[in-house]
């Protein structure tokens, strides 16, 4: 019995002996924003900007203290190590929930950066990844007045706990990884820009990747249409122009569905259906309830044109953010040749867009 106890005790002692990773929370610097840019120094490969939150016991508006650490290096890991050697606390990437890729980086191949981000266990796979324009540094530097916790603005904008709008389509790191890796779908990143007012940031437009680098930039409106169609971001509003007046539909639900029809090899086409249910929100003319049908028709026509234009733009530029290619692959069993088939098919594919708009009401007043 005594021997057993002795053995047990010595085991426990072993536990004490081995080093442990004990590090108190106040000895950690939380990285709340991770930015990657191209460096000013030509010899280096990356410029890494880390936004480190300074914790405070009482949280008040405007007291969002943070430190920005910048470092240029040949590799991301080196840059982070260099920053580590400068700060007095342990860097903790566990809360690095926003990852910003500067314009310069997006124009290059972003494969290695993505691998690094995915490889690190402490970087959340549900971090939001975005394109920062003109550079990640510029965006991370901002200090919005309403912010209580450093970096919280981006978290709220993307987290959909705060503002909800169709201009923003948050992209998680793992989604971006999937889109980058998959053949048959082009990756899309939302773009964050510095607003005119120096202290604010805004999400405007998007970047579409092809072959792991930037291929096409979407304007604000195009991005909204894409978000609405592809992801069903439903808090969107569309301005419909008639002959001498206009009205705005705010959508309750919007859904884009499509079908690839290649039965006829010579003229393949994509059947694209858009279903919209919405309410009238604004107009410069008194609109009457009886003419809803007419407004529906008007809106449908405009949607059909706009969607078709967008789809054709994608096709002209050889990008496929909707993932038609993936869908094609999913529907065909000839797994070895399907991709090639699709690549030949896509440039000559036609789009047949059919919109179906239903205006449900006119809001609170008639």
């Amino acid at each position, binding site marked *: 019995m005594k021997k057993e106890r002795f053995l047990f005790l010595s085991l426990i002692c072993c*536990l004490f002996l081995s080093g442990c990773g004990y590090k108190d929370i106040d000895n950690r610097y939380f990285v709340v924003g991770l930015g990657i840019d191209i460096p000013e120094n030509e010899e280096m490969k990356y410029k890494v900007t880390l936004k480190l939150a300074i914790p405070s016991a009482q949280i008040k508006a405007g007291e969002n203290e943070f430190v920005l650490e910048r470092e240029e290096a040949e590799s991301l890991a080196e840059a982070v190590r260099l920053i580590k050697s400068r700060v007095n606390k342990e860097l903790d990437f566990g809360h690095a929930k926003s990852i910003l890729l500067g314009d310069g980086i997006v124009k290059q191949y972003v494969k290695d950066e993505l691998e690094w981000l995915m490889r690190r266990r402490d970087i959340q796979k549900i971090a939001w990844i975005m394109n920062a324009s003109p550079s990640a540094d510029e965006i991370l530097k901002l200090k919005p007045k309403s912010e209580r916790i450093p970096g919280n603005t981006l978290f709220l904008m993307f987290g959909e706990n705060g503002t909800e709008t169709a201009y923003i389509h948050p992209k998680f790191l793992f989604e971006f990884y*999937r889109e980058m890796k998959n053949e048959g779908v082009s990756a899309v990143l939302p773009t964050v820009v510095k607003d005119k007012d120096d202290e604010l940031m805004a999400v405007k437009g998007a970047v579409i990747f092809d072959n792991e680098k930037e291929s096409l930039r979407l304007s604000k409106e195009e991005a909204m249409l894409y978000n609405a169609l592809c992801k069903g971001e439903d808090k969107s509003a569309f301005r419909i122009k008639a002959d001498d007046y206009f009205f705005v539909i705010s959508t309750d639900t919007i859904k884009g569905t499509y079908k690839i029809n290649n039965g006829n090899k010579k003229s393949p086409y994509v059947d694209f259906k858009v279903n919209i249910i919405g309410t009238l929100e604004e107009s410069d003319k008194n609109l009457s309830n009886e003419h809803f049908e007419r407004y529906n028709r008007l809106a449908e026509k405009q949607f059909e044109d706009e969607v078709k234009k967008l789809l054709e733009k994608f096709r002209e530029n050889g990008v496929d953010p909707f993932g038609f290619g993936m869908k094609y692959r999913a529907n065909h069993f000839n797994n070895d040749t399907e991709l090639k088939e699709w690549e030949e098919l896509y440039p000559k594919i036609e789009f047949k867009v059919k919109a179906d708009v239903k205006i449900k009401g006119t809001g609170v007043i008639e």
Partner: protein
Amino acid sequence: MFKSRYYYYLIFLNMLANIVVFVPRILLDDRRNGALSAMLIAIPLGLMISYFFTKFMSKFPGKGLPEVLKEVGFPKFLTVPLIGLTALLWFSAGILALLAFTDITKRFINPDIGVLYIALLFLLLVVWASKLPTEKVLYLLEIVLIVNVPVIAFLFLKAIMNDALSWPDMTEASTYIMNIPSFDSLAATTYIFTGYINIVIFNRVFNEKINMRPFIFVIFIGIGVVLTTFFIPIGYFGFDGVGEFNFPWITATDAIRIEFGFVERVFFVFLLLYIGVALINVIVHWHVGLELILSILPEQKKKKKFKWLTKDLIVLLIIASIYMFIQFYMDETTVFKLGEWWLRLRMPNEYILVLAIILYVWRKRR
């Protein structure tokens, strides 16, 4: 007194514990080479073997395999290697699971902590708990399952209901159904259904015939479990990108986010709960192995010195030191290779053993 529900716990435990480590990686590596078709064969195969073996064992209520073999007069020179081999299979299953979860702990939860430390922590618990009486192991199993499974099930559901899950990728994966089934995937998938082997010992406490009616649920749950193992990581990381992960399933849970939960990044909750499940799985494995070995070892002589060093402790310490040896002298690739080879060898071995016993008894009865 012992309800047959404990039997289903054992089967269910084995399903749950094995769908996160070796099995999904093997299946996903084979995703272009006949994983799906192998799964389709493995499901009925695994279910049938477990059904018949359970039926066979429940003809001998209250008796474990060693007692059954004695009763039917199985040749003695075959009994020892047969039981020894089964015990060895089960011990190594425990060792592999423990290796995998030590690795996971080190990699995802505490990268700064020493492996020795984690290994000792696990070993202390597992060695002590596998010496518990057979019925107590079942009580422990029941508590652990009932506490953990609802939360794990909720997270599974959350994973499936996630908007970010890409359905085209999963459909693309299913278009590979016509491939020639791969043996590795077949072996891996049948492993999910191999929990029935546990009754070679636990049958000792099942005094009544096991009620086979709920087995129909095992079929449904089994199919569901196999499909989620395979499809969920594909849905998150894309058909093309999923192959690059060490632990695809575990990384996939990092893609689940609960906005309004107490913990936003549920990955940790999932991992911690899963470690509980893995530990009880190892305990069950080692308990079965230990009881089998004890049944073929000669009676212990009474000794004066080292009274605490009982036979069962010696067996467990040998097994534990094998685990420690592998842990420290082999790198993770070797461990994974080991796991793959083990899975390959296990299936034919297990099935030959089971069929040999059933056939022998059947012929004897005739």
